[in-house]
């Protein structure tokens, strides 16, 4: 029996979460490297139509794993339903995108099956028949190659943007879709979730900004943000920030760039005093051009910067504002 890779595609409230295409791309790459076969599964109350969408990609089979108790999402239902399904299917490797929903249940699922999850991976290697997942540690300062020391199934989750969703290969003919009902007993589900909502104020949509000037902890004090705002204004761009700045209340939450905030891909992203923590990077690494100013030459932001300025932002930003103004005035 061939080993199987199973990608669990995420749907939320009946809509496919597009980051799942990245996981399909990852699954296809690992399948090519290992020779294992690739299947996919969609989990929900009525996942059939999303399963149909997934079947258009090059996978051997798609499962629609269903139970009315899988809607709304709860970790108890997902862990119980998937434990049943995976126990029956016995894949070698289970892959998911590292979303907030996956984080909420996959460690529970793996533990219930006495297995382990290597999470937030950015790549993989297949060396001498051994599958290794690569992930970032110490906020991106070091990379780690991690291997499984347990029996299958192995669980891995991939970071947003680690693979390209648009590179997921399509199938010549749609894959077969099989519906699998799972039974979730009464009393299993203990959480009662309410409606998902967006916080009332969303004054600025940074996803539309072409130029973003973003501040991190290096800005040191709230009053210094004014300087960054002047630069943003001079450039005709928008002001944004990493999470700690918003946690401190120095800028409102709708200015936050990162996994909990907005994901942006502007023409220009100017990072001032931002170290480059993973949760921030996932929100801006798609920017066309990244310029980083930080006094720490080892800051992980420089891994992804197109232009690096190692220095004190308080020395650099004021003359920069003047030069930008001069240039715009036709100087």
């Amino acid at each position, binding site marked *: 029996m061939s080993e199987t890779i199973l990608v669990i595609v995420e749907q939320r409230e009946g809509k496919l979460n597009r980051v799942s295409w990245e996981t399909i791309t990852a699954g296809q790459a690992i399948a090519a490297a290992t020779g294992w076969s690739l299947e996919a599964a969609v989990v929900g109350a009525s996942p059939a139509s999303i399963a149909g969408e997934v079947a258009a990609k090059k996978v051997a089979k798609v499962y629609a794993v269903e139970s009315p108790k899988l809607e709304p999402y709860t970790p108890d239902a997902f862990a119980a339903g998937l434990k049943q399904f995976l126990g029956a299917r016995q894949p070698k490797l289970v892959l998911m995108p590292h979303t907030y929903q996956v*984080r909420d249940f996959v*460690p*529970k699922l793996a533990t219930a099956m006495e297995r382990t999850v290597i999470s937030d991976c950015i790549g993989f290697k297949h060396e001498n028949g051994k599958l290794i997942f690569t992930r970032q540690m110490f906020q991106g300062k070091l990379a*780690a190659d991690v291997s499984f020391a347990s029996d299958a199934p192995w669980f891995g989750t991939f970071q947003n943007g680690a693979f390209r969703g648009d590179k997921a290969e399509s199938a010549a003919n749609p894959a077969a879709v099989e519906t699998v009902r799972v039974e979730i007993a009464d009393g299993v589900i*203990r959480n009662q*979730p309410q409606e998902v909502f967006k916080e009332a104020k969303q004054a600025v949509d940074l996803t539309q900004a072409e130029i973003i000037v973003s501040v991190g902890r290096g800005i040191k004090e709230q009053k210094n943000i004014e300087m960054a705002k002047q630069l943003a204004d001079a450039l005709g761009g928008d002001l944004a920030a990493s999470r700690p700045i918003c946690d401190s209340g120095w800028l409102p939450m709708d200015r936050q760039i990162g996994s909990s905030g907005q994901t942006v891909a502007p023409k220009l992203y100017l990072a001032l005093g931002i170290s480059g923590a993973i949760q921030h990077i996932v929100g801006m690494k798609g920017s066309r051009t990244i310029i980083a100013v930080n006094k720490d030459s080892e800051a992980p932001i420089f891994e992804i910067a197109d232009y690096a300025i190692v220095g004190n932002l308080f020395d650099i930003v004021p*003359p920069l504002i003047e030069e*930008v103004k001069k*240039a715009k005035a036709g100087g």
Partner: protein
Amino acid sequence: MKILVCMKQVPQKDAPLKLNETGAWIREDVSYEVNEPDAYALEEALRQREKHKGEVVVITSGPARAQQVLREALAKGADRAIHLEDNAFVGLDALNTAKAFAAAVKDEKFDLIFTGLQSDDYGYAQTGVILAELLGWPHATIIMQIEKTDVGIRVKRELEAGYFQFVDMPLPAVLTIQSGINKLRYATLIGIKQAKNKPLRKVGLAEVQSAIGANLQKIERLYVPQKTKKTEHIEGPPAEIAKKLVDKLRNELRVL
């Protein structure tokens, strides 16, 4: 409310890291600090105790140096501390860490267990969720608000892209706490003095050995990440950097 806060000591954010001789871990001669999300978890526990009365207990696992995290927590107002003390705890995976914690507190009856949503060193975001499964408790992750209700708690779960969700849950429960849920307090001088007299129970590896097993995953190697991007450094005195950068913005990037 009896609340357990699981805390971790991690290398300081700006600590220069070097690989040790195995190449699979770092040299430990760096400065350490409390894992930032755990500081928010502790703060939340202290606030819940202020509202609802009860006890806040903090626990950590690690070598002697990890005691610093507990001392600071006691100084901020935690009532007592538990230190799973042994170098060996550093190398345990999340599953074994959770098993060790569960074993250390098996005779206690907590209403809530908090962890930070993830650690600044590993960044797995698993220990809290695993602990809930081991204990058979409900859990919720990335929590930004907790309110007591007649039948348990109502928590505000943070989702991506500015979305949130309220969830009603029974107690006891495990919650992983998001940074920014509150504002951190500083320890007062009185708090630091009082901390010295608060109970700090040490638990050796032998006490929890039977609960843990072999790690189910292994770090094969650590390394400085390979750079895939070509980065151009702009150097010189600030005035020159400003001119060079504006030149690039105008002529190469065409944003001016």
